[in-house]
């Protein structure tokens, strides 16, 4: 018997090319049982290719795919203990909801009684009983999504693949379904492999996010790590909104494990989560908009600059402001703040501070 902490999935340097383009470049990855892993990236980054390779719909050019310790690289989709929620849900139109859900169970060779038992279980869990006799054409988008999920969960797969399953839903429903999906994943203890280009979806639901770009992994970590300590410029820009500060490394403060950098004459202190740069090197640092605080006098944060609000945008729950940094021509910062602070500060010069942990020095 396998150790329960053994990975459910291990990708051993898998590569995939389509003609001349490399869709996936030697991907190594392990997924632990019960993890909610999201592959996040723009279209063409290789996230969907990874999903289709896991499902068995594409063949790898090199590398191995291990599922529950067994090599499934050469197995067709019907021989893999993996099920998928398709982007368009792919609910068979000539079958009722119950027939759709029974399809995978019948092919597993279960007898009628076992199938009915499992159907009742999954339908009551996902509150689908009222729709059992309906066809896909008689369901709303949200209901279809749920049926597709139920159908994929019914055969009890080792790994559930989800191919942008919320893309077809309207914005309001999407938020609700995100919470629901996360709850379902927790209750079923299933391993979810979720693919999306939507950073909000990724941040809300995932235990772990793998950001992909041009067939390679940019960064692999928890949502918090990716958000606050992005490793690369790509990740910093792709997830959330950020200030990118270009400067030169002055030196490394070993005691506090801080990078000291020069930003057009101003000294800034940041942290380098993904590798310490050398002195004299040109670097870019990422500073999240909500990490900036406003002060009347010089704050005692390691980083402090004086500036003036030149533009404000009302966003409802908060304000976005653009700041012109004094003594540095053309240097601007963008910050989130509340409505009261903005009106109190007005057009007068103000001190802006942030701690060194908020300034992530990027590797590229």
């Amino acid at each position, binding site marked *: 018997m396998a150790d329960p902490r053994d990975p459910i999935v291990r990708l051993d340097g898998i590569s995939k090319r389509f003609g001349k383009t490399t869709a996936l470049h030697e991907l190594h990855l392990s997924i632990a049982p019960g993890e909610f892993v999201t592959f996040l990236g723009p279209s063409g980054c290789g996230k969907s290719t990874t999903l289709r390779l896991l499902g068995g719909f594409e063949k790898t050019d090199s590398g191995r795919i291990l599922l529950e310790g067994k090599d499934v690289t050469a197995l067709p989709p019907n021989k893999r203990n993996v099920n998928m929620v398709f982007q368009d849900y792919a609910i068979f139109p000539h079958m009722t909801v119950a027939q759709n859900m029974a399809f995978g169970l019948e*092919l597993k060779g279960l007898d009628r009684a076992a199938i009915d038992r499992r159907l009742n279980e999954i339908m009551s869990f996902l509150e689908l009983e009222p729709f059992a006799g309906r066809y896909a054409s008689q369901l709303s988008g949200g209901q279809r999504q749920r049926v597709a999920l139920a159908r994929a969960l019914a055969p009890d797969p080792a790994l559930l693949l989800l191919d942008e399953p919320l893309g077809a839903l309207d914005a309001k429903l999407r938020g609700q379904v995100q919470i629901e999906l996360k709850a379902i994943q927790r209750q079923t203890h299933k391993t979810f492999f979720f693919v999306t280009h939507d950073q909000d979806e990724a941040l809300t639901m995932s235990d772990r996010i793998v950001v992909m770009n041009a067939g390679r992994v940019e960064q692999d970590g928890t949502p918090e790590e990716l958000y606050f300590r992005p490793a690369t410029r790509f990740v910093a820009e792709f997830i959330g909104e950020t200030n990118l500060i270009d400067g030169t490394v002055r030196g490394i403060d070993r005691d506090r494990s801080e990078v000291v950098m020069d930003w057009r004459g101003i000294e800034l202190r940041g942290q380098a989560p993904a590798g310490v740069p050398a002195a004299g090197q040109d670097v870019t640092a990422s500073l999240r908009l909500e990490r900036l605080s406003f002060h009347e006098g010089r704050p005692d944060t390691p980083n402090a600059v004086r500036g003036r609000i030149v533009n404000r945008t009302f966003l409802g729950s908060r304000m976005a402001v653009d700041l012109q940094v004094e003594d540095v021509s053309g240097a601007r910062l963008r910050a989130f703040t509340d409505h009261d602070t903005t009106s109190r500060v007005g057009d007068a010069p103000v001190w802006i501070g942030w701690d060194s942990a908020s300034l992530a020095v990027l590797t590229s």
Partner: protein
Amino acid sequence: MTRNSRVFLSIVFWAFVVYLFVPLALMILMGFKDSKFIGFPIQSWTLDWYLGVFEDTDVIGTFFYSLAIAVASTAISVVMGTWLAVLLTGRRFLGRGAVYALMILPALVPGIISAIAFRIYARQLGIEPGMGAIIWAHAVHNVPFVTLVVMARLSTQPKSYAEAARDLGADPLVTFVRVTLPYLKPAIIGASVFCLLLSFDDFVRSFFLGSYQPTLPVLIFSKLRSGMSPEINAISTIALVLTAVLGIWAERSSRRMNKEN
């Protein structure tokens, strides 16, 4: 659209309707005339010609002979045509264009030419004229219609349906039988009815490849040669009603099925 052009179009339309239906109406009308001579005026009406048709064992036998040919050739065409459609819609292979062109060809060759060709070929192979030869010729002629209709339907099926079936544990055969075939059902029903009608209606191939037993169109033709009679009108009217009912039913049911999906 201006008022004038609308008036013009409706005149053209009604002229077309008259052009299309007046001959049919005349034919139907003459079947009820109580006289052997076809033409106006109709002095008295009768159903005797129709009763005659139902008592004529020759006509009844021929009707079922034609029906059997239509059903058998349709069955072959549908299987062949669907298989070709799946082959041509699936993954690319060397010579796909050639297969497509060859598949279309039987529908384009003029009937008389293909009939003569079939006749010569059948003799070379030692195939006797008769039911088998006619079924063979009809099946070959009808395959392209099935393939084209099924291909059109197949191209509208999202790729994810077959993938979802495979994902849930179906091998390619089960996927085809349980997911793809039901999706193609409306197209297959429509194509079947079309093939039945084409075969039932065919004269040239049946004439060249038939034996002493004629098909219905051949029987009507031979009856015509011995002189026009309202009995022919009655037979034709019955055939017209049957084919029209079948055609309209097929059209309506395939439209309904399309709407459901």
